[in-house]
């Protein structure tokens, strides 16, 4: 990529023996306990006054060895573990894992299961984006949207709870389809929800979209070009805000997505404001998908024929889905036994977080907060 910025070299973090009046440099440690790092992210900032000369992320505080666990559990046993990675979008994690194993087993989930999967995944995307919006706005100082988004996210979690009994780490899907049939009134609940949400999204936008301070805080902050995005492997709304119309749901469709009509919102400048707009549009598109899915929900079985003991033939497969944060991929190597020989998770947050350094160089401390927020990372997924 000749037109992309070369990745900046790592910081030389010596202890500053001079005061910053002499050297103009100040090392500021942000986290792992800090209100705006969205978990246990530690960011070491090298500052010139308030200007950022470079950042270094220290991660791994939440490392649980998910991949190692995967090698030591059967395929079905590992399924609940993936929910614990991106815990605000647990349904997406589960979908990705189940589809990957299904691919390995060469089975396909029945259409009804696929529709239910799409409904729940898109609801989860909404929940994830709402959480992102609330915390991002709070980071920039707007307190109120947080409570509005939590109010509306609650409705989604209620649907999850009614469907599978859990609100956050749902474990909603099983390899081969869904374990649970929809409860009575599921369609009614979902329809009610998709009628209820659009005015609420308008409400968030009213508070933020044309708010002068919001615009000033987000426009031209944390810019990243499309070329840089591709070179760094940044995906999801961040990539789309840079103007690349790429969404795995369209590019390499999975589940029941080919059946639905929706658009991929893209931005132009790749700044924080565009990412905000893209995610807001994505929320509306998700509602569109949910409406189509719930109206066209087919009858039929919800579980494919899956062997009692899952022994996929030896081989390997990579499959990825469009998680709310970007491309969530699973690479599974099977040796023909009941346990995967190797499970690799390609976490979107981990790869996206890498772009932080590039995005904040030359900007101010306050922008670091805005950019961490706009990258929408979940440390459970970064560290796994």
């Amino acid at each position, binding site marked *: 990529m000749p037109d992309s910025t070369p990745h900046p070299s790592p910081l030389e973090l010596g202890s500053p023996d*001079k*005061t*910053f*009046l*002499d050297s103009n440099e100040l090392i500021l440690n942000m986290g792992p306990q800090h209100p705006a790092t969205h978990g246990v992210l530690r960011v070491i900032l090298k500052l010139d006054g308030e200007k950022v000369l470079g950042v270094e992320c220290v991660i791994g505080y939440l490392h649980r060895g998910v991949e190692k666990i995967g090698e030591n559990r059967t395929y079905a046993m590992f399924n609940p573990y993936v929910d614990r990675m991106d815990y605000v979008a647990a349904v997406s994690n589960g979908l990705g894992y189940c589809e990957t194993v299904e691919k390995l087993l060469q089975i396909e989930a029945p259409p009804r299961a696929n529709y239910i999967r799409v409904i729940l995944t898109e609801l989860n995307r909404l929940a994830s984006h709402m959480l992102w919006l609330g915390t991002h706005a709070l980071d920039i100082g707007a307190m109120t949207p947080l409570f509005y988004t939590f109010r509306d996210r609650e409705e989604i979690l209620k649907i999850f709870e009614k469907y599978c009994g859990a609100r956050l780490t749902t474990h909603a899907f099983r390899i081969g389809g869904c374990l649970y049939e929809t409860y009575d009134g599921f369609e009614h609940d979902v329809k009610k929800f998709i009628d209820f949400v659009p005015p609420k999204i308008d409400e968030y936008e009213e508070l933020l979209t044309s708010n002068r301070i919001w615009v000033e805080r987000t426009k031209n902050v944390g810019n990243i070009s499309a070329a840089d995005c591709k070179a760094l492997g940044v995906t999801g709304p961040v990539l789309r805000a840079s103007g690349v119309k790429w969404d795995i749901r369209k590019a390499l469709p999975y589940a029941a997505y080919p059946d639905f009509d929706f658009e991929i919102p893209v931005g132009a400048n790749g700044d924080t404001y565009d990412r905000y707009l893209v995610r807001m549009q994505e929320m509306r598109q998700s509602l569109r998908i949910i409406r189509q899915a719930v109206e066209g929900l087919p009858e039929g079985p919800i579980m494919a024929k899956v062997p009692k003991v899952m022994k996929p033939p030896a081989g390997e497969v990579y499959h990825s889905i469009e998680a709310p944060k970007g491309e969530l991929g699973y690479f599974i190597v099977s040796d023909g036994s009941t346990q995967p020989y190797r499970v690799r998770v390609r976490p979107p947050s981990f790869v996206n977080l890498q772009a932080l350094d590039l995005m904040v160089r030359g900007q101010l401390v306050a922008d670091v907060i805005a950019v961490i927020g706009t990258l929408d990372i979940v440390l459970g997924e970064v560290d796994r």
Partner: protein
Amino acid sequence: MTPVATPFFFYFLAALTLLSAILVITRKNAVHSALALILGLLAQAGLYLMLYAPFVAGVQIILYAGGIMVLFLFVIMLVNLERSQKEEQFNRQKVAGTLAAIALGGLFVAVFIRGKALFPASSNQIAEGSNTQQVGELLYGQYMFAFEIASLLLLVAIIGAVVMAKKRI
């Protein structure tokens, strides 16, 4: 308004001024020195008030205690304190300095004793309540030219400071 306990307040403020002035030069920690200086300036503002010059007192607080000293503190706080603590407090000229100070003090005392006739105590009582107006009239009337010249000088100084401090303009 009848003044209350005037001698007490005068001696109190005067002592405070002197004490803080001494603290300014004896503290090793530069920040403490600056704080002592602020205390001294505030005490001085109190003295101005006692002289029925509230405007001068107010300006003293706003400009010196509030404005200039904050900038002072700013600079001092960013200087490496550990190094300055290790440095010697007084250099070799301290004997000469003390002598000069004593001489100056002697001069003041001599003037005070000998020249009592020159400075009659509280001879001109300024009408209370119009002090600010009088200051204004003097500044913008009689001393207009000098006042404007001084402002011009300050303006030049500000521009000069900006030019010198900024790396690129």
